[in-house]
C-alpha cells in the first residue's frame, strides 16, 4: 500500500488541507464515536468523584482546631511568634540600638515533643533574629517592618512576612557589634545598619500603606524551628541590646513593655521555651523562640493545600485520556481509515497535530470544568473536617485549575503522538502509561532525590503547575515533595511538558512522512 506515499504532493495546498478544515475533520471523527465521548465524560465524572472523596476524609493535621495559623497582610499563612520589648511612637521618628550578642540553643527533642531548655545544645541557628521592629499592633499577623541581625545571613530588612532584603554580612559578637536603626517618615519605613555607630548603610525600605499614627517600636528576638532531615527541633535565641536611643536621645527602657507575641498554648509554631527579658546593667537581654516569616507549616500543621485533593482524581482522568487517545489514533490504523485520511490530508504532521489539538482541547475543557469545582470544594471539605488548609490566593487557585487541565490536555497530545509512532493499541497505551503515569506514581512512592529528578526530567514535571506553596529563601526548611514542594516552578514545569509534546509530535511527523500508512 505504498500508493499514498508515492502520490505526488499537491503544489498548491487544497482547500481541505487548511488547518481549520483539518481540525474540523478530526473533531467530527472524535465526536461521532459515541464510546469515546461517553468515556471522556465518565472519566471527568470519576475525576470529580475521586477528588471529593479524597478531600472528604477525617482530620489528619497535627494541629487541632484550637490552634491557629495567623493570616498575614497578603492572605498567606504566617508564623508570628517572638519576644518583643516595645513602646509606642507617634508620628515620624527614629529608633537606634546596638546589638552586642546573639546566641542560640537548639532542642535535642523533636518539635512534637515539648521542648525544654534542659535538653538542648548550643549552636548558632542560621535564621535566629535580633533587631528592631515596628508594627501598628501586636496582634499576630499584623503589618510590620524590621531590621535585624541574623545568625549567619548578616543584617536583613524584612517586612510583611514574605519580603526580605539583605544587607552587610557578618556575625554579631562582643568584638564586632552591629548598630541597627529603623526610621519612620509618613508611611515609609527604612532600615539602616552600621558597624561603628557613625557611618550608616541603608538595608531596605518599604511603604506600609495606611499605617496608623501611633505604632509600637522596640527590640525583638526570635529563633525558628531547625529542620534536620525530617526532624524539626525548636530553638531559642538570646540577644543583648544597649545604647538604645529614640529620636536621638537615650531611652529609659524600664518603662517599656515586654511581651511574648504568640501564645504558646494556641500558636501552631513550636517554641523551645517562653520568651523572656531582663536588664543587665545598661543592657537589655531578650530571649525568644519562634519566627516572623511566611508559614511553612507542612509537617507542623498538616500538609493540605489548595491542590492536595486533586492528585488521585488526576491519575484517574489521565488514565481515561490515555486510553481514548490511544484508540483515537490506532483505530484508524486498524480500520484502514488512516489511508483515506492521509489521501485527503497529505500533510500528515498537520493531521496528527490537529488530532492532538482536538482531543487535547476537549480533555482540557472537561478537566477545567471538573477542577474549577473540585479545587474550592476540596478546600471547603478539608476545612469542614477540621484540617488546616494553606490559604491560596485566587490567582494561585486559578493557576492550579489551569495547570491540572493543561496537564491532562497536553498529555492527550503526547499520547496521540506516541500512538501514531507505535500504531498498535497495546503498545500505545503501555507507552502512554509508562511515559505519563509511571513517573508520577514512582515519584510519589519513592520520594527523595529520585522523585526530584523524575519531576524535573519526565512529563511528570507538569505536576509543578499544581504548586500551591511558595519556596521562601528566608525560611530554612525541607522543601521536598513530601512537604508539598515541587522541584520546578509552575512555568518551568509547563515548559517541560510542552517540550515533550513538541518532541513527540515532531518524531511522529517524521515517522509518518517516512513510513507507509
Amino acid at each position: 500500500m505504498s500508493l499514498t506515499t508515492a502520490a505526488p504532493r499537491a503544489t498548491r495546498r487544497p482547500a481541505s488541507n487548511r488547518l481549520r478544515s483539518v481540525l474540523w475533520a478530526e473533531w467530527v471523527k472524535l465526536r461521532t464515536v459515541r464510546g469515546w465521548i461517553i468515556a471522556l465524560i465518565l472519566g471527568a465524572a470519576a475525576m470529580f468523584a475521586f477528588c471529593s472523596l479524597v478531600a472528604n476524609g477525617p482530620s489528619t493535621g497535627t494541629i487541632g482546631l484550637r490552634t491557629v495559623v495567623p493570616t498575614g497582610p497578603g492572605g498567606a499563612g504566617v508564623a508570628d511568634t517572638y519576644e518583643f520589648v516595645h513602646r509606642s511612637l507617634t508620628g515620624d521618628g527614629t529608633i537606634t540600638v546596638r546589638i552586642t550578642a546573639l546566641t542560640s540553643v537548639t532542642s535535642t527533642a523533636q518539635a512534637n515533643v515539648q521542648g525544654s531548655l534542659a535538653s538542648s545544645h548550643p549552636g548558632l541557628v542560621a535564621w535566629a533574629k535580633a533587631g528592631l521592629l515596628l508594627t501598628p499592633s501586636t496582634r499576630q499577623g499584623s503589618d510590620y517592618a524590621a531590621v535585624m541581625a541574623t545568625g549567619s545571613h548578616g543584617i536583613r530588612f524584612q517586612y510583611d512576612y514574605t519580603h526580605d532584603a539583605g544587607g552587610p554580612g557578618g556575625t554579631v559578637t562582643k568584638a564586632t557589634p552591629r548598630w541597627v536603626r529603623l526610621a519612620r517618615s509618613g508611611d515609609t519605613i527604612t532600615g539602616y545598619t552600621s558597624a561603628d555607630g557613625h557611618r550608616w548603610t541603608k538595608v531596605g525600605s518599604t511603604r506600609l500603606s495606611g499605617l496608623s499614627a501611633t505604632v509600637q517600636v522596640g527590640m525583638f528576638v526570635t529563633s525558628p524551628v531547625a529542620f534536620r532531615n525530617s526532624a524539626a527541633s525548636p530553638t531559642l535565641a538570646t540577644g543583648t541590646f544597649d545604647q538604645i536611643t529614640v529620636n536621638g536621645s537615650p531611652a529609659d527602657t524600664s518603662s517599656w513593655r515586654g511581651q511574648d507575641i504568640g501564645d504558646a498554648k494556641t500558636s501552631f509554631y513550636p517554641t523551645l521555651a517562653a520568651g523572656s527579658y531582663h536588664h543587665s546593667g545598661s543592657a537589655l537581654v531578650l530571649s525568644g523562640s519562634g519566627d516572623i516569616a511566611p508559614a511553612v507549616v507542612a509537617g507542623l500543621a498538616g500538609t493540605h493545600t489548595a491542590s492536595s485533593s486533586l492528585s488521585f482524581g488526576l491519575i484517574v482522568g489521565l488514565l481515561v485520556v490515555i486510553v481514548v487517545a490511544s484508540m483515537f489514533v490506532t483505530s484508524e490504523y486498524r480500520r484502514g481509515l488512516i489511508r483515506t485520511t492521509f489521501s485527503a490530508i497529505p500533510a500528515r504532521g498537520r493531521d496528527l497535530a490537529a488530532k492532538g489539538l482536538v482531543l487535547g482541547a476537549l480533555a482540557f475543557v472537561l478537566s477545567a470544568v471538573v477542577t474549577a469545582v473540585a479545587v474550592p470544594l476540596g478546600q471547603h471539605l478539608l476545612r469542614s473536617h477540621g484540617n488546616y488548609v494553606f490559604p491560596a490566593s485566587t490567582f494561585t487557585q486559578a493557576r492550579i485549575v489551569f495547570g491540572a487541565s493543561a496537564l491532562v490536555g497536553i498529555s492527550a497530545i503526547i499520547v496521540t503522538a506516541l500512538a501514531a509512532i507505535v500504531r498498535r493499541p497495546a503498545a500505545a497505551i503501555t507507552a502512554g502509561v509508562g511515559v505519563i503515569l509511571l513517573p508520577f506514581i514512582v515519584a510519589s512512592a519513592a520520594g527523595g532525590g529520585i522523585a526530584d529528578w523524575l519531576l524535573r526530567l519526565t512529563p511528570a514535571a507538569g505536576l509543578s503547575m499544581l504548586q500551591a506553596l511558595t519556596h521562601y529563601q528566608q525560611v530554612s526548611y525541607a522543601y521536598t515533595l513530601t512537604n508539598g514542594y515541587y522541584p520546578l516552578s509552575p512555568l518551568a514545569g509547563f515548559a517541560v511538558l510542552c517540550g515533550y509534546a513538541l518532541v513527540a509530535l515532531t518524531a511522529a511527523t517524521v515517522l509518518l512522512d517516512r513510513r507507509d500508512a
Partner: protein
Amino acid sequence: MTATVRAEWTKLRTLPSTAWLLIAAVAGTIAVSAIVAAAWHINRGSTADPTKLSLTGTYLGQAVIAVLAVLTISEEYGTGMIRTTLTAMPRRINLLAAKAATLAGISVPVGLVAVAGCLIAGRLLLPHAGLNPAHGYPLIALDHPATLRAAAGTVIYLILIALLSLGIATITRETAVSIGAVFGLLYLPPIAAQLIHDPTWRRHIQQLAPMTAGLAIQATRNLHTLPIAPWAGLGVLAAWAAAALLAGGLLLRLRDA
C-alpha cells in the same frame, strides 16, 4: 478440547509479540527486583521483609503478563480473526477455557523463571544492604516454609492476573480499553488507599483490591500487620479472576462476535 487448546497454543506461539512480551515479563521482573535490592538500605527501627523485597519486580511483571493476556483475545476482535476462530470452534465456552488454559500454561514457566531470578538477586544483593544474619535476617532460602509459600504464591498470582486480564478483555473486546481497565483495577486502589485517611476504609480497600489482596502472599514477616491473610488474599484475587472469566464467558455466549 485438546484440539482447541492446540489451536490456541499455535496462535499464541506464532505471534512475534508473544516472545517479546514473555522476555519482557521475565527481564522486567528480575530487573526491578535487582534494582530495588541493590538500592535498599536498612532503616533503624523498621523491619524489612527480604523475601517480599526481592519479589518487588512483580509490580512490573504482572503488567506485561496482563498485556499478553489481553492481546490473546482482544487482537482477535481487532483483526476480525475471532469470526474465523468461532466458525472453527463453535463452542465458545470451550474456546475461552482453552485460551485460559494456554495462558495459565505459558505463565507457569515465566513465573517460575522470574521468581527464581528475583530470589537469587535478593539472596546475592540484600546481604550488602544489611539484611544479613548479623542483623537477624537469614539468607533467602526455599527451605524456609514462608519463603516457599511466597515464591509459589507469586507464580499463582501471575497466573491469576493473566486470567483476570483475559476475562476483562473478553468483556470489553477492545485492546486499549481492556489494558486501561486492568491497569486501573490493579494500580489505582493501592494509590487510593494511601490517600484515604480513615483506617477502616483503607483496610477494606486493601482487602478487596485484586493487587493488594493478592500480593499478601509475598509477605514472610509481620503477618499480623497484613490487611488480609496470605492465602485468603490470593483467594480474593482468584474470585476476581473467576468473576471476570464468568462474565466474559456469558457475554461471549450471548453476543454476536
